[in-house]
């Protein structure tokens, strides 16, 4: 296996030119690495930023989608005649409409119609309405009568392969062949072990539920279509929409400059984009189509549930001898990577000669999954990092020490076992443990009363996070010294715009408030892949640096003439160009006559290739302390520390924000979140923010420490950066589970560790069961 299948980068991407020069790594920096507030912080907080969901266009109609209320059904007949005549209704489309005769590709050669009569999950689109007001659209939806043949369903992936389980697809409920990985010989490995532990785990399905709902505004201008979309990547949306509608790419413009969160669920186009475009076409009016919160729980992705069995063996000295994992998961009703990357940590996080994994992906009558912050990894970490703890207990070794015994220097799974540019795992574990006070905390008494304290740790790497080509960026420096940064990448709330502006400021001395950023618009900004996979900073920042350097070279050529100093001896100091040899020889950039005549300097930058035969992965280790009320099963997380090897810290503020956000999300997996299907009907019963419990501020400790431990990874790319957004949430839930175990001696193998589950386990334990 050369590179793991990253199904969130599944579209063909064009090559970009190589950078013109390979600059030296930054030695000292003036702007990069300093704490800078968001360049668009005011706009976001004050509400003046126009998100796609805020957009109002003249003559705009509002659309809504009628969705199948059954887990599995066949549409026999749709009668929309009453709806079509209702006040304000401008268009109703159903599966019979010629305009809706389009194919939707669910991947792996599974195609359906836009409104397919075979509805394989609750929430599949059945019809749509465009009307003058949202209320009229929803009233019209209620007036559409659909005759469904309700079919038997299966929503529990553990039952999907049972004899007699209803088949979702002609070939049955297996998505493909069982995915197997093997190295060495696990039988021999377990035989060589002094201790072997084997545990079964389950993580529940989670819903992304970002603050901004999924949706778009679509408008036609002759043959050209513009879509304002809440998205992590405008180019993948353009590609998909143009493909389905059989339009030239150039005629589909997608704009997504602001967006309110996605966590992986907005890396792709959705059927609603096509529905909005078709309705806008039919009505010759702009159409706004945003889903309701409830709809987003059904049909725009989830983190797949994972059922994992893990067996691990080690010698007394802590050397791992064998790891074996089997996993059954589901991406829902269509192929969606239901088990994708669940075994990656088992394969690659620790040095181990004998590894065997088997992944079985099945169909159920549930909404299709989408990548969710570190696909597969938090699930795998939940199993692996709890098993490693159990193994440490079994051989009587400290859990951190056991991990340190098995730190790999190469990627064992990838062909040729290439080395990592940096393996920060050792530093994350040792420096993290020290800063957390691990050894003292482990000795801390658990408490005499009913409330017990415990500490836990877990580690991770992230399979991607190197970033890489393609990316093209344009930087324009105006003659007054202000600049314009043009890039295709979305800022998904992580601070991308801020960090990229800081790179421009670093190279060109432009103050951050004099940099205008244009981004995420397929018509006016340069090609970028979607912001996901923790790759935006390591992908885009070298391209931005390359573009800024291209401007700088031109600037120095101009200044060389005027200052009578060779260009190679010039530097930028504040707003001046200055001779490196004689600081008195200087001139304000804005006062360079040649520059004023030119008006603007344009630099085009691209992202160069990653180092050959090396792997660039971020690493992390997290530590936490919890309190468990053994009478009620309540768990309180008291503090968290997150140690990271993610290369250079571009901006400590955005870095820390990622850590806090990732830990918060991981606490959700650990303690509160799970999708619940009704066993009687297959419908999702928790589809709002009350019944589906994302953590509140009261569930997250105020004490979260961000601890970057590694220096810039200068081998990785020209900014020394690696991804961060996913490692921050991978080990979190496992660390909490390990802390709970430390507190009360109960290993909770199924997520979430809700008071419901924990009090039941405590009761069992007390009863000696």
């Amino acid at each position, binding site marked *: 296996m050369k590179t793991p299948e990253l199904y969130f980068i599944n579209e063909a991407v064009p090559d970009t030119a190589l950078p013109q020069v390979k600059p030296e790594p930054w030695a000292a920096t003036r702007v990069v690495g300093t704490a800078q507030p968001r360049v668009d912080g005011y706009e976001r907080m004050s509400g003046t930023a126009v998100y796609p969901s805020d957009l109002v266009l003249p003559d705009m109609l509002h659309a*809504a989608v009628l969705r199948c*209320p059954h887990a599995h059904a066949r549409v026999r007949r749709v009668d929309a005649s009453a709806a079509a005549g209702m006040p304000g209704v401008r268009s109703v489309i159903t599966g019979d409409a010629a305009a809706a005769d389009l194919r939707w590709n669910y991947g792996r050669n599974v195609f359906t119609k836009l409104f397919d009569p075979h509805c394989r999950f609750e929430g599949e689109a059945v019809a749509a309405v465009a009307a003058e007001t*949202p*209320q009229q659209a*929803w*009233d019209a939806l209620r007036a559409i009568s659909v005759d469904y043949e309700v079919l038997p369903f299966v929503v529990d992936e553990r039952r999907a392969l049972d004899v007699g389980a209803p088949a979702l697809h002609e070939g049955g409920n297996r998505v493909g062949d069982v995915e197997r990985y093997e190295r060495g010989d696990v039988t021999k490995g377990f035989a060589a072990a002094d201790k072997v532990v084997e545990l079964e785990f389950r993580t529940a399905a989670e819903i992304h539920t970002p603050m901004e709902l999924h949706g778009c505004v679509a408008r036609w201008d002759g043959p050209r279509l513009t879509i304002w979309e809440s998205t992590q990547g405008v180019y993948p949306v353009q590609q998909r929409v143009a493909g389905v509608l059989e339009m030239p790419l150039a005629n589909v413009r997608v704009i997504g400059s602001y967006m309110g969160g996605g966590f992986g669920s907005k890396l792709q186009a959705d059927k609603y984009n096509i529905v909005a475009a078709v309705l806008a076409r039919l009505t010759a009016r702009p159409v706004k189509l945003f889903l*309701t919160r409830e709809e987003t729980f059904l049909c725009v992705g989830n983190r797949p549930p994972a059922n994992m069995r893990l067996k691990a063996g080690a010698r007394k000295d802590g050397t791992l001898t064998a790891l074996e994992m089997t996993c059954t998961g589901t991406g829902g009703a269509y192929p969606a990577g239901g088990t994708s990357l669940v075994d990656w940590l088992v394969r690659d996080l620790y040095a181990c000669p004998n590894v065997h994994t088997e992944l079985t992906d099945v169909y159920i009558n549930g909404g299709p999954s989408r990548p969710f912050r570190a696909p597969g990894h938090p699930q795998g970490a939940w199993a692996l990092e709890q098993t490693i703890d159990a193994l440490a207990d079994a051989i009587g070794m400290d859990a951190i020490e056991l991990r340190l015994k098995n730190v790999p220097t190469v990627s064992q799974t990838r062909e040729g076992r290439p080395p990592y540019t940096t393996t920060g795992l050792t530093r994350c574990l040792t420096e993290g443990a020290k800063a957390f006070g691990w050894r003292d905390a482990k000795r801390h008494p658990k408490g005499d009363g*009913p409330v017990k304290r415990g500490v836990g740790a877990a580690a991770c790497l992230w399979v991607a996070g190197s970033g890489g080509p393609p990316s093209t960026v344009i930087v324009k420096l105006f003659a007054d010294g202000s600049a314009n940064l043009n890039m295709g990448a979305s800022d998904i709330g992580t601070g991308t715009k801020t960090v990229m502006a800081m790179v421009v400021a670093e190279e060109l001395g432009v103050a951050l408030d004099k940099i205008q950023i244009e981004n995420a618009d397929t018509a006016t900004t340069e090609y970028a892949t979607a912001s996901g996979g923790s790759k935006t900073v390591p992908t885009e920042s070298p391209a931005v640096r390359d573009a800024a350097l291209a401007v700088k070279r031109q600037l120095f050529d101009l200044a060389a003439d005027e200052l009578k100093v060779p260009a190679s001896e010039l530097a930028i100091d504040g707003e001046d160009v200055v001779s490196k040899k004689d600081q008195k020889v200087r001139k304000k950039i804005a006062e360079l006559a040649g520059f004023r005549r030119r008006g603007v300097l344009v630099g085009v930058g691209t992202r160069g290739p990653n180092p050959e035969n090396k792997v660039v992965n971020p690493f992390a280790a997290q530590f936490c302390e919890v309190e468990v*009320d053994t*009478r*009620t*099963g*309540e768990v309180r997380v008291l503090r968290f520390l997150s140690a990271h090897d993610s290369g250079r810290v571009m901006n400590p503020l955005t870095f820390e924000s990622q850590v806090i956000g990732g830990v918060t999300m991981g606490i959700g997996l650990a*303690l*509160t979140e799970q999708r*619940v*299907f*009704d*066993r*009687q*009907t297959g*419908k999702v*019963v*928790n*589809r709002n*923010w*009350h*019944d589906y*419990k994302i*953590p*509140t*501020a*009261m*569930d997250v400790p105020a004490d979260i420490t961000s601890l970057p431990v590694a220096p810039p990874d200068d081998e990785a790319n020209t900014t020394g950066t690696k991804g961060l957004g996913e490692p921050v949430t991978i080990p979190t839930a496992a660390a909490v589970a390990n802390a709970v175990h430390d507190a009360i001696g109960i290993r909770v193998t199924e997520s979430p560790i*809700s*008071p*419901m*589950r924990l*009090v*039941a386990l*405590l*009761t069992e334990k007390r009863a000696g069961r």
Partner: protein
Amino acid sequence: MLPNFNYVRPSSLADAVRQLSTPNARVHAGGTDLLGCLRDGVFAADTLVSLSAIEELRGIRPSLDGGLAIGAMTTLSEVAADPRVADRYPVLSRAVAAAASPQLRNQGTIGGNICQRPRCWYYRADFHCARKGGEKCYAAEGENQFHCIFGGEVCFYVHPSDVAPALVALEALVRISGPAGARSVSAETFFVPPSKDYTRETVLGPGEIVTEVVLPAQPRGTRGSYRKVRARGAWDFALAGAAVVATLTDGRVTRARIVLSGVAPIPWRVPAAERVLVGQRLSAKSAARAAATAVEGAQPLAQNAYKVEMLRGAVEEALAALL
């Protein structure tokens, strides 16, 4: 999407009662529950009668017998912040503070809080359940981890209010106005169990409005506390909880009220557990005995057996807080 409705905002109680007699009219107090029900299609309304302009329904004032009278339109935040409530009725002040989230407490009213509709996820979604005129209670055989272990019988929801158990524990009175005039009922009899009528949650008749909650003066030596266990730290209803009030004379309990939340379709008083305490000293031991008695007779469903032990813990901790 909210459906269409007429909205009226009378400035007198009499006018409000009159407006409520129009077909399919509903009371709008804070709206935190009502608007959700309308949006989710739990029920429809042709007219919403807002009580927000009726001054006499607001505020907290001393009652004639030395207690406090709380206007139905007083917000939960106002109740929580009131020093008289905190001082004399700590069980209520804690229960109010445990409800929902700060934003919801700023908007939600005490009258509305005790008139909440069930939070059952079947009732709130597109399931045609018994309470909505359908054939069955989906929770009986379905996803019932959040449902009741006492008093279900035909409908297994749990009463969502934290405030209501505190009011029952305090032996509060609920004042009601309606087409036939004013009346008062005890908080304990205000709530209707499914065994009596599974289509309603309170004794309110057509056109009737809760106008005031009256807290009687508490005997000297009375203490109170509320313990709530929930699945997350805020903005969540009780999985199990207990409002406890005890009067101590010379170190011994002379009167005790233990009322459970999150485990029954009404605030669930457990007189047997109260009797365990009376005549005893309040101690960890007597608290544990009372807690064990409180969970006797629980009838868990397939997925909520955990509530029995959790409830025992909550009662124990609530009583321990009185020590």
